[in-house]
């Protein structure tokens, strides 16, 4: 089912006295239940594209639609709150809180009433036991922190999970575990998972690879389904 529709999106950044085109009228569609990888060299516009999908910024031209409705009309804040879960390379957890509390924060923001037990269950499903969930996040390993970040991204029951280099700070084995989680979310939880990565190893595990060209701001889509 067509979930997210990127239609003729154009985006530029100021570059000294001139303007640099990052995305040149690109169009692409994302569906539920699939794992997408956005790949490109440094400066190709991967993160920019991710910020537009995640509702952290607005396109200069073009329309991004969620379930047929322009996200600008939905409201970027509401779109992020209700429909998107984000995972970052540096985890971006609240450092003075426990894993459980980080998840509860996201649940609280979503406005949906959740019990602590639901938060524990969510963490458990990601592989974080209760004892670790009650620990301050700074006392956890990188892999554990990223799992908590994924659990937080799931807290508001989003349709879309976007991740920006989620395995960038992790070792190989942990990286495989995390990517496995994302695939599981796509297949078992019917989420649309979009991961930005520079790693070909990660990209190869995706259903669809979108390769961004730095020079002309366009996509080449490789569909592995």
């Amino acid at each position, binding site marked *: 089912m067509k979930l997210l529709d990127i239609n003729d999106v154009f985006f530029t950044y100021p570059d000294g006295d001139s303007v640099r085109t990052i995305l040149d009228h690109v169009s692409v569609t994302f569906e539920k239940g699939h794992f997408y990888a956005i790949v490109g060299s440094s400066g190709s516009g991967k993160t920019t594209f991710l910020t537009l999908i995640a509702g*952290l910024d607005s396109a200069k031209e073009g329309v991004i639609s969620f379930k047929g409705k322009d996200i600008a009309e939905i409201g970027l804040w509401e*779109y*992020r709150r209700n429909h*998107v879960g984000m995972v970052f390379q540096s985890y*971006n*957890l609240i450092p003075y809180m426990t894993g459980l*509390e980080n998840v509860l924060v996201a649940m*609280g*923001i979503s406005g949906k009433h959740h019990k602590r037990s639901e938060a524990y269950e969510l963490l458990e499903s990601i592989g974080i036991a209760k004892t670790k969930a009650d620990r301050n996040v700074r006392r956890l390993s990188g892999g554990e922190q990223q799992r908590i970040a994924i659990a937080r991204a799931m807290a*508001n029951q989003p349709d879309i999970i976007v991740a920006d280099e989620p395995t960038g700070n992790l070792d190989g084995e942990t990286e495989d575990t995390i990517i496995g989680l994302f695939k599981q979310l796509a297949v078992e939880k019917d989420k649309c998972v979009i991961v930005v990565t520079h790693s070909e190893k990660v990209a190869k595990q995706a259903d669809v690879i979108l390769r961004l060209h730095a020079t002309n701001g366009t996509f080449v889509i490789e569909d592995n389904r």
Partner: protein
Amino acid sequence: MNTLKRAWLSVIRKPGKNFLLFFIVTLLTTLMAASLAIRIASNNVTAEVQNRIGLQVSIAPERTELAYGVVGQHIPYSELQKVVSYKGVKSYNYGISYSFQAKETTQFPMVVLEGTQNPDLKHYWPNSQIIEGRTFTEQELAEGAHVMVISKQMADYYEIGVGDNFPLGRFYLMYFEPFSEWFDMEVIGIVDGPEVTRNYLPSQIFQLYMIYYYSESHVGWENLPMAIAPNIVIDQQIINTKLNYRLVGVNLRQNVQMRIPILQMESFEAVTEMRKLFGKKLPMPFKFNFADDQILSVLGPIGTLNMIAEAVMVFTMVIAVFVCSLIILLYLKERRHEIGIYFALGEKKRNIVLQVVLEVWIVSALALTLSVFAGTWIAKGFSAELIRLQLLIAEVQKGKEDIPNDNIPTREEVAAAYTVKISNEYIWLFTGLALLTVTASTIVPIVNILKLKPKEILL
């Protein structure tokens, strides 16, 4: 997890970082609390004084005339009647005292005749009571009937009772011709109480007073037996005397003791009207004293204190907003990342603003609790010292004693009535002002946060 819980966790999980804000808030709000405590105490005393004398107008002689004793010391009753007949006067009190001689004894003792125009004797002598007979009727007071209520001390000393006739008057033994004039006073009642009992009444005979140039103000009035009579009677006996006091060299009216006439007005408009109608019509050397003039006079020390307190409070609030704003701004700069996370999660801006405000309030809660007590303690010490200095200054600057005015408190009484204490009013006002101040200090930092873009913070 709601916004309040987030704010709470933010404060308790980072006590070290929040300590500076706590310290500054405690320090500055303590000064605010002290200033507010002083202001409340000052305002309470001022309100008490204003309530006591607010709608009052008094009539008093100019001080220079008093000092030199040139002109009569009491306003004649006939002149007073012209003023008090004005419809804006709700009520008035007036009393004069004069010492007369008693005729019907061989010892010629003096008697202090205290005047009243109020049938309720407790008005001037609150701790006294009629033990025999009755008090005056309104008609007797208005018409100046020659009746008197005597003290029990006087009744015992002269062995007189209700219904007896007791002449009073003057006897002067002058160097060329004796002079005497008497008027009869009927005893209608006997009153007893500490205020009508003299401290010292010698058991031996009073000496005959030879009036050449002997001011009766030199007489120890506390030693003379006392009786109470209508003001008009005393007034007329002084003014209408046939004694040629110029020959005697004594100004009889000068030796009257007068309670300052206090007029209780119907309204503040009536006070203003009084100024216009009668301001320049009083006989010399009398003038009106209006309440606001008197209030300023007795509230001198308190007024100074109040001014200082107000200045300190305003200054402290401004400094508190400025300093706390800087501290909060620094804190929030360190927490940009955290705020970016909230933005990325789609948290509403108003909730982020609320969280910042709640965090400041939580830090301030303990600070304000300490400040309530510390501020009161400082206020007590500081204001006591300042009032003491002000009273010393007032003492040095004091001129001739004012003539008695029952209703106007002295500066010392005002200072004694001044109390710094922890009251509900103080706690509520201080809490409101302090919270307003610390909340205002979040404005600039919050405006700064809201300009942040999550994309720039997190990616």
